[in-house]
């Protein structure tokens, strides 16, 4: 041993400066190295995957855009002019896909309701909406305004619900189901934890029944069996029945997701609220529910996305949602065999809606995250 190792420059204790990190560990090159080329296996995977991706993208661009035909009268005409997708079927039937058989002259009404939907949603979804309080009043009134616009009455021509179809129908069932099942689910989740045995039992039975039965079975019940239970002569609109069933079904799932959130809240939170003299309802409204909802966002949005896609099941009981319209179009001799185009188009609609919900939930989680150390 030849004495202590000496460094070229030494600092008095406590004076050591912060040095920059080693080269290639930060920034773009650091990211590439860490994520794509960290090992031989990773490098090979990266190269193979990039090759496949390029191959696939070229084929897809070819089919979707370069070789596709938009302007044609039939599938035969499509095939004569292009080798790719025959978007002509969508171009010609797009209105049917959107409105079903909603009368042409009245279509401004659902259009208007659709625009108002965003005005009504803004204050609910975004807490920084200007004039949020005042706009909330509109949001509360919106379901009635939308029902009036779409269905008619009070000066507007009544459009019977069996004419609704396509994306319009999906939106009606999906949005109603989502908006109505959330408060109902909250009630059920709280009821399931109630100290009153009868309330707890009712909620448990309801939730377990709804979760134990397939939605299709409930829709069949809605479309056929409900008539047996109702007094003869009462006609109860089929769409309303479907809305009720979808809402009840989703609310059971929301309740269970939320129960998980409620159980995740430490007992200390409730003790602190008790100790401050807050009553049960105030504690629930101000302390437990806001925290439970926040924890449950991913699960609740997951339920909503599932519900939204499950609206396609209404085709089973004869309502013409986009897939129902698609089937009808495929039955047309001029367009048979174009199922890829038609179903991709429907898929795109669902994807855009569901992806938006998913992104919103991520944004909201971030927005509500109070658990970071600020600079």
């Amino acid at each position: 041993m030849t004495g202590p190792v000496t460094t070229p420059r030494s600092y008095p204790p406590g004076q050591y400066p912060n040095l920059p990190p080693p080269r290639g560990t930060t920034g773009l090159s650091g990211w590439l190295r860490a994520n794509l080329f960290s090992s031989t296996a990773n490098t090979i995977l990266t190269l193979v995957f990039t090759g496949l991706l390029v191959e696939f993208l070229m084929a897809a661009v070819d089919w979707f855009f370069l070789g596709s035909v938009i302007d044609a009268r039939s599938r035969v005409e499509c095939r004569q002019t292009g080798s790719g997708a025959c978007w002509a079927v969508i171009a010609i039937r797009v209105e049917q896909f959107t409105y079903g058989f909603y009368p042409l002259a009245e279509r401004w009404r659902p259009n208007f309701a659709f625009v108002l939907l965003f005005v009504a949603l803004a204050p609910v979804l975004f807490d920084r909406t200007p004039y949020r309080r005042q706009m909330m009043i509109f949001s509360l009134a919106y379901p009635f305004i939308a029902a009036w616009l779409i269905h008619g009455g009070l000066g507007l021509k009544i459009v019977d619900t069996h004419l609704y179809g396509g994306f319009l129908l999906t939106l009606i069932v999906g949005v109603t189901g989502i908006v109505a099942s959330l408060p109902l689910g909250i009630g059920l989740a709280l009821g399931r934890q109630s100290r009153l045995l009868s309330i707890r039992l009712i909620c448990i039975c309801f939730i377990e029944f709804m979760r134990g039965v397939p939605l299709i079975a409930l829709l069949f019940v809605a479309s056929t069996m409900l008539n047996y239970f109702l007094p003869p002569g009462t006609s109860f609109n089929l769409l309303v029945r479907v809305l009720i069933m979808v809402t009840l079904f989703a609310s059971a799932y929301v309740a269970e997701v939320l129960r998980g959130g409620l159980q995740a809240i430490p007992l200390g939170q409730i003790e602190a609220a008790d100790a401050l003299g807050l009553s049960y309802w105030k504690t629930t409204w101000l302390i437990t529910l806001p925290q439970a909802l926040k924890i449950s966002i991913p699960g609740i949005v997951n339920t909503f996305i599932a519900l939204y896609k499950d609206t396609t099941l209404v085709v089973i009981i004869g309502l013409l949602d986009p897939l129902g319209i698609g089937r009808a179009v495929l039955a047309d001799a001029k367009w048979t065999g174009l199922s890829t185009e038609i179903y991709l188009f429907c898929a795109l609609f669902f994807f855009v809606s569901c992806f938006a919900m998913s992104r919103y939930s991520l944004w909201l989680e971030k927005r509500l995250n109070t658990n970071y150390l600020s600079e």
Partner: protein
Amino acid sequence: MPPDNADIMINITAMHKWFGAFHVLKDINLEVAERERIVICGPSGSGKSTLIRCINRLEVHQRGTIVVDGTALSGNLKNVEQIRSEVGIVFQHFNLFPHLTVLENCTLAPIWVRKTPKKEAEALARDYLERVQIPEQADKFPGQLSGGQQQRVAIARSLCMQPKVMLFDEPTSALDPEMIKEVLDVMIELAESGMTMLVVSHEMGFANRVADRVIFMDGGEIIEQNPPEEFFNNPQNERTKLFLSQILSH
């Protein structure tokens, strides 16, 4: 042994409590005078936390009586809410509301329980945050604060209800050593301002400095109670001596 002719703030007589079959508090008799400061110590599981949690009915006692400022604790919800709004408690783990800012934590109960107007409640909260020396943190969330700061917010939150009694349930046990002092400083200031306090703690320095009486509990019983000089220098009971030798030996 509160001084004679002082107003009695808390009066506990022949109080018992069980957790299931476990007899956790046995024949507790305790009088606390207004402005009196009491430190309760004892080994873990001796029932000291349970005792102070009974005073604002976070735990329900089964036998005996507890009277707080003239109101007897019973199943009557009105009485319970009345007592809770007059008795503040500070927990070991702070129990701040993480989804509310520091200011909102402090104004919540005054606004919703006392029906204080929002502006007034905020002014009050800022006063108390000033008093616990973190006025600049008012708009942050609890998760952004250190443990010591969170505990001081918890103290301010309780004080905003302007309680007549403050209970402290091991307020420094969850803190890093360097943060204990800042919390104790606030508690000392509070004690010197004349607040009636019951503190479950092993901070013997704090007990020595501010307590009027130190109570030693073991096995659910009050074993010994005396003013601090007497308690520390001349413990009577064998168990007290053993306990003191264990916590003071290092």
